[in-house]
């Protein structure tokens, strides 16, 4: 191995150490934030629930959240030893439904948020960087979508095409929720574009692609990530709303679905053990993602402050 190769190796090692150090620093700030800690512990709890959701059906087929029916139960019953949270109107276990609901919530929330943020970031960066006609067209499109009431439109589509699968719902949410992100990312891109380091990159011979991916993107990604945590919240709420109104995926057990079953079978005021758990879970998971987002805000902020203060 030549000396050059050795230095190169050490450069790579140094770069890794640098990122570790950066991560550690961010983690330190995050840990100092109470909201973030609460949010993160709640999310860990929901994550555990989602993970545990695979276990009950293995114990006994009657614990399958969708199809498992306790043959001894014919109506909704309260908590007992065999059904810790009770059963629903046809004897399905509420706890295993609740666990399965956590899995669905994560799946819907994260994937819809991820898709909308990716789309929003791509559109926002393109519009901001290219400017002119492209900017106008993309932003007018964003405006048009932004003013559409997501829930109402998805409801209408669901009514038109019959029941929608959970993935269709995810896609819909993503398609309707990107404009907000793209506005923020566009604004950020516009201000970055004016910064001298972009001029410096141009003088260094960087192509547009390189400027977008190497210079602008790393500077907007933290913001995009921040927006993702907030978007998760709204995606979960929209899915729950759809399901509660009866337009959810009938093949999936989500918390919104559970609420719909409570309501449809008239147990709203008679079975708190059935009504409360999914309701509390929806509120808590949206709250925890929100708190996480607030903490991320803190984490991203000091670095920005750091930069300006040095000047």
């Amino acid at each position, binding site marked *: 191995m030549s000396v050059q190769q050795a*230095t190169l190796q050490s450069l790579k090692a140094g*770069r890794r150490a640098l990122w570790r150090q950066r991560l550690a620093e961010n983690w330190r700030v995050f840990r100092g934030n109470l909201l973030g800690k609460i949010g993160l512990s709640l999310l860990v709890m929901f994550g555990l629930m989602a993970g545990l959701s695979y276990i009950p059906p293995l114990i006994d087929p009657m614990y399958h959240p969708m199809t498992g029916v306790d043959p001894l139960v014919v109506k909704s019953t309260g908590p007992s030893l065999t059904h810790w949270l009770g059963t629903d109107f046809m004897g399905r276990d509420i706890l295993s439904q609740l666990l399965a609901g956590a899995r669905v919530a994560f799946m819907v929330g994260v994937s819809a948020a991820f898709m909308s943020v990716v789309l929003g970031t791509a559109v926002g960066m393109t519009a901001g960087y290219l400017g002119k006609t492209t900017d106008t067209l993309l932003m007018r499109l964003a405006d048009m979508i932004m003013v559409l009431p997501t829930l109402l439109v998805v409801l209408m589509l669901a009514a038109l095409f019959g029941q929608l699968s959970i993935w269709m719902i995810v896609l819909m949410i993503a398609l309707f929720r990107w404009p907000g992100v793209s506005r923020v990312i566009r604004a950020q891109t516009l201000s970055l574009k004016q910064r*001298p380091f972009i001029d410096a990159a141009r003088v*260094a011979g960087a192509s547009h692609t390189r400027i977008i991916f190497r210079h602008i993107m790393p500077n907007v990604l933290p913001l995009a990530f921040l927006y993702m945590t907030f978007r998760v919240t709204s995606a979960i709420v929209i899915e729950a709303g759809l399901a509660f109104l009866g337009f959810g995926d009938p093949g999936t057990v989500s918390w919104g679905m559970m609420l719909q079953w409570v309501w449809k079978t008239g147990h709203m005021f008679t079975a708190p053990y059935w009504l409360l758990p999914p309701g509390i879970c929806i509120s808590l998971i949206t709250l925890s993602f929100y708190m996480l987002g607030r903490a991320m805000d803190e984490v991203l902020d000091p*670095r920005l402050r750091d930069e300006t203060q040095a*000047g």
Partner: protein
Amino acid sequence: MSQSHKDILKLEGVSKFYRTRGNRYRRGGGTVVALSRVNLSLRPGEIFGLVGESGSGKTTAGRLVVRLEEPDEGRITLDGVDITHLKGGGLRDYRRKVQMVFQDPYQSLNPQMTIADAVAEPLITNKVGDPADRLERVLGVLDTAGLSPAEDFIYRFPHQLSGGQRQRVAIARAIVLEPSLLVADEPTSMLDASYSAQIFEILQGVRDQMGATIIFITHSMAAARYLCDRIAVIYHGHLVEQGPAEAVINSPSHPYTKALIDATPKFGRCEGVPTYGTYLPAPRPAGEQAGCPFFQRCALAERLLCSATYPEWRQVAGEQVCLCHFAAEGGQSPPPPEECRLGG
């Protein structure tokens, strides 16, 4: 000028206008002249100073040279090749030869990029060498730019460095391709005075060791005198005086050059620098569009002539030329007769 064929960079009649958009207070758009018919030629291996205040167009001139902007009129040639409207691949090749150091080191480095990545960027975009070669060159230029041991700096982010260090990183990045022309846009104005000397030393080293030609843009006459071989003074987009640095500063001819010298702090080691008093503290009403650009502030202006007629370039001494009706050989403009002079 006899050796014009040897000039590395030539600006011929270069103008740049900015269109301002109207707003609620000022209806309609207007045009701001950033540069007006500028002629410049640079000789290989010299440090050429462009001196002026903010808004004088000196930065615009620098940005035109590195082609961050395109001139509206005139033409720019490097080694005889017209680069005024280069695009695409041609522009990329051009930028291998012409690099720039920006004014504000707090803004000109990407906060998300390590020093190693920032300095290596010109090499990567121009596909020079393999990663190992590139690293070696990066370490080399960091050393040239006075950041040693270079290994200590490459893993850091810009916000972990002081302003002086950042500016040295910016210089390293600009010289890593060994350009033949370097534009340094007020590289010390955002830094503590104590860092300036370091930056000057590095720039001199770049010229002496790499043979690069440097355009040094500054507002400081003293810095220009220290660093430059020749200087040009620019006022509101118009060049007003040009010549060897020593000559222009010791015997300035244009009233604006004199005003700049008056304004430089002279405490210590400046005995014998006269006070010229050529700058009107309050501007007089504007003259005609075609008049002398300095008319409003010039204490020596003669109303009829200066407000209406654009001056011609006059040779003052040797290579020193001046854009003033009253410039005369010998370096001093004779004061106009008392009755023609305007009150302040």
